[in-house]
C-alpha cells in the first residue's frame, strides 16, 4: 500500500492552536460544563463581505483550512472532505426557533442554507475554487474518521494527489441545554485538569475545527504518515482488545511497538472504562495521552486528537498536559488513537513518523 502523508495541519480549538509554530506551550484551563474555542482574529483570514453570512463553524473551518493550505504551500486541492457531527447547528437552531416563534412566517433563507451539513465543505470549495470531489460525513464520533478513510482510499487509488480533510463542530445553547437534561453533558462544572477524576456522568462539551492536507507525496512540511484507520458501529468492551490487535496486525504492527496511545477519555464515569480496558492491559507499559480536557468532547474532537498526534510526531515532544501515565519513550515513531462516544462509534487510527 502506498504511503499517505499528512503534509500540514490547522486547528482552531479551546487552546491556542491556531499558530503552528507553537505547541501547547500555554495551556488554558477551564472550570465549566462546556468550553468554547479561543477565537482567532477572523478578520485576518476572512474578508468582511464573505464573513457576513458565515456561521461560526464555517469561520473556524475557514481559518484552520487556510492555515493548513498555507503550510502545505498549496492554493488548491483535488478534493475536500469534511466530517461534522452536527454541521452548523447554531443556524439550524435559530431556524427552528424562528419557525416556531413566528409561526412559519417571515423566515429568511440564510440560516436554512447554513444548516445544510455540507455547507462547510461547499463554502471552502467556493472560496478556493475547488471543483473536485466534495464529501461531508455526519456520523457522530466517527464523522472525522469517515472523512479520513475516504481521503486515504482516494489517495491510494490515485483518484487525488492532495486532499483537504477536516472535522468541525460548534457548541450552541439549545444543544447544551437539552443534552444537560439527559445527562450527556455534566450538570456540575469541573476543572478541566481534573476531568478524569470528576466521578460524574456526562462530559464537558467543546467545539473546534481541525483541517489537514493529506497527499500521496511527501511535502517539506510533512508531519506524519497515515498508516491505517478503521471504525466500528458497535464494539463490546470484551472484544475491544482483540479488535485492536487485529487492526494492528493488518498493518503488521505489534502492540508492543506502539510508542504512544492517545485515548478519548472524556471523564464520563459511565463510558471511560472502555479506555481503562486498554490502559490497564494491552498498553499498560506504553506511554498514554489524553486530550478532551483541553478541547472538550464533541463529535469531531478526534480531529483535535489527530492534530495532537501529528504535532507530537513532528516535534517529538509529548506535552506534559496530555500525559496520562508516567511512561515515556526516547522517540515517538508510532501513535495509535482510540476513540468512542457513549459506547458506540469506535475508531482506531494509526500514524507513523515520516
Amino acid at each position, binding site marked *: 500500500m502506498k504511503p499517505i502523508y499528512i503534509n500540514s495541519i490547522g486547528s482552531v480549538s479551546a487552546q491556542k492552536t491556531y499558530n503552528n509554530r507553537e505547541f501547547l506551550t500555554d495551556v488554558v484551563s477551564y472550570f465549566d460544563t462546556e468550553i468554547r474555542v479561543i477565537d482567532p482574529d477572523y478578520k485576518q483570514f476572512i474578508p468582511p463581505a464573505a464573513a457576513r453570512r458565515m456561521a461560526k463553524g464555517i469561520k473556524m473551518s475557514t481559518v484552520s483550512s487556510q492555515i493548513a493550505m498555507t503550510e502545505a504551500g498549496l492554493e488548491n486541492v483535488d478534493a475536500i472532505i469534511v466530517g461534522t457531527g452536527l454541521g452548523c447547528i447554531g443556524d439550524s437552531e435559530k431556524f427552528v426557533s424562528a419557525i416556531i416563534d413566528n409561526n412559519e412566517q417571515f423566515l429568511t433563507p440564510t440560516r436554512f442554507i447554513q444548516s445544510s451539513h455540507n455547507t462547510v465543505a461547499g463554502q471552502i470549495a467556493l472560496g478556493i475554487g475547488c471543483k473536485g470531489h466534495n464529501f461531508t460525513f455526519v456520523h457522530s464520533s466517527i464523522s472525522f474518521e469517515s472523512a479520513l478513510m475516504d481521503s486515504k482510499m482516494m489517495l491510494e487509488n490515485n483518484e487525488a494527489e492532495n486532499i483537504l480533510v477536516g472535522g468541525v463542530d460548534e457548541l450552541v445553547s439549545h444543544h447544551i441545554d437539552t443534552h444537560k*437534561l439527559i445527562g450527556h453533558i455534566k450538570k456540575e462544572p469541573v476543572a478541566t485538569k481534573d476531568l478524569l477524576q470528576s466521578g460524574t456522568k456526562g462530559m464537558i462539551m467543546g467545539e473546534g475545527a481541525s483541517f489537514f492536507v493529506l497527499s500521496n507525496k511527501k511535502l517539506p512540511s510533512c508531519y506524519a504518515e497515515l498508516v491505517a484507520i478503521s471504525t466500528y458501529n458497535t464494539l463490546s468492551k470484551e472484544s475491544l482488545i482483540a479488535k485492536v490487535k487485529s487492526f494492528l496486525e493488518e498493518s503488521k504492527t505489534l502492540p508492543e511497538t506502539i510508542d504512544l496511545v492517545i485515548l478519548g477519555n472524556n471523564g464520563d464515569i459511565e463510558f471511560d472504562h472502555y479506555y481503562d480496558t486498554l490502559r490497564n492491559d494491552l498498553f499498560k507499559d506504553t506511554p498514554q495521552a489524553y486530550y478532551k480536557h483541553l478541547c472538550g468532547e464533541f463529535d469531531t474532537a478526534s480531529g483535535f486528537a489527530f492534530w495532537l498526534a501529528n504535532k507530537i510526531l513532528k516535534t517529538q515532544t509529548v506535552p506534559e498536559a496530555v500525559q496520562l501515565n508516567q511512561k515515556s519513550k526516547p522517540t515517538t515513531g508510532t501513535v495509535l488513537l482510540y476513540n468512542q462516544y457513549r459506547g458506540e462509534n469506535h475508531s482506531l487510527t494509526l500514524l507513523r513518523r515520516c
Partner: protein
Amino acid sequence: MGVLSAIGNTPEDNHASLISEKAGISRITKIDTIHKNEIMVGEIKATNAELKQQLGLSLDLPFSRTALLGAVAAAQAIKSAHVQDINDCRTGLISGTTVGGMDKSEQYYYDYFQNDRHWGHINGLHAGDSTQKIAAYLGLEESLVTTISTACSSAANAIMLGTRMIKSGLLDRVIVGGSDCLCKFTINGFKTLMILSDTHNTPFDENRKGLNLGEAAAYLVLESEEIVKRRNKDVLAYVKGYGNANDAFHQTASSDDGDGAVLAMEKALKVAGLNKNDIDYINAHGTATPNNDLSEGRALLRIFGKNVPVFSSTKAFTGHTLAAAGGIEAVYSVLALQHNVIYPNLNFETPMKEFDLIPQTQLKEKKLRTVLSNSFGFGGNCSTLIFSKEA
C-alpha cells in the same frame, strides 16, 4: 433493493406506478403547516405508528421518521438480496440523510424543557442517529457504518462510496442509499428560497414553478464479485461509473452552464470506461426549479451535443426527496434496466426557450444496457452514477 416512496412501498409497487403514470403528489396531511394550501408534496401514507408496527418495534421507541423509513427500506433490500446472516462477511452500511431526526426536534423543541416525555428524541437529532438505528435494526455489528450528508446528492454519494470501498477491497458487501422524511424545517427552508411549486411540479417545462418536496427511503445491497461468485447470486445490475464534482459557483444555485454537472458526468463516463454514445437513458435530477433544469439541460448539451440520450425526471411522481433522491432514482434506474423501459417525465408541455431539449413524456420500451442518473445538491454538490446490465 428496497424502496419506500409516495408511489409505492416496494420496488415492484414503484415500477407499477411509474408505468401507469400514477403520481404520488398531493396536499400534505401529516404535518400541520400554515403552508398546507400553498404547497404539494410526495408523502408516504404510512404513519409512524404503522411503520413501527411493520418493523416490530415498540411504539414508545424514540425513532425519527427518517430512521423508520430507512429501516423499512434497508430491511427490504437485505431480504431481496437473500442475505441470511448480515455479519457473515465484511458488511457496511452507508446512508445519506439531510434532516435526520429534525422532525422530532422541531416538534419537541420547547417541550423538552416542560417534561421528560420525549427526551428519548434529544440525542436523535444528529444525522448519524438514523443510520445507527438502521444498522442496529439490521443486526449489523462491529462494522463500518457511516452517514453522508451532501444535501440532495447524499444517497448518490453513499452509493458511490460503497462502490469504491468494495472495489478497494475494504468491504465485501455494503448497504447503500438514503432516507429523508418531510418536516417543517425543509418545507419552510425551501419556501424561503422561493422554489416550492404550489401545484404539480413540471420538470424541464418552460413554465415550471419549482419543486414539490417528498419523503422516501431507498437502499441497494452491493456485493463484491467474489461474494456473488461464491454464493452463485443473481445480479440485478452493476454500478459501472460514478463521479462527484463541485460546481464551486454559489451556496445553493447551480452555475448557468452546469460546470459541476458536466464534470460529474465526465468522471462517471471515464470510470465506467464508456463512451457518451453508450448511454441509453438518463434519469435526470430534474427538480423542476427554474435554476436546476436550465443548468442540468445545458450540462447535458455540453456532454452529449446533438445526441442527448432519451431522458426523463421522475420527480413529478415522487417529489424531490432530498437525500433519498439519488437512492430511489438508483432503484428506478435498475428497474428500468430490468424491465427495458424508460419512465415518463410527467407534466411536460412547453419546451424551455433556452434550448430544444424535450424529455421522454410517454412510457417507452427500449432495450437498455446503461442508465445514467444525476443528483445535484446545495453547496454545488454534483453526482452522477452509471448503472449497467453487464459488468
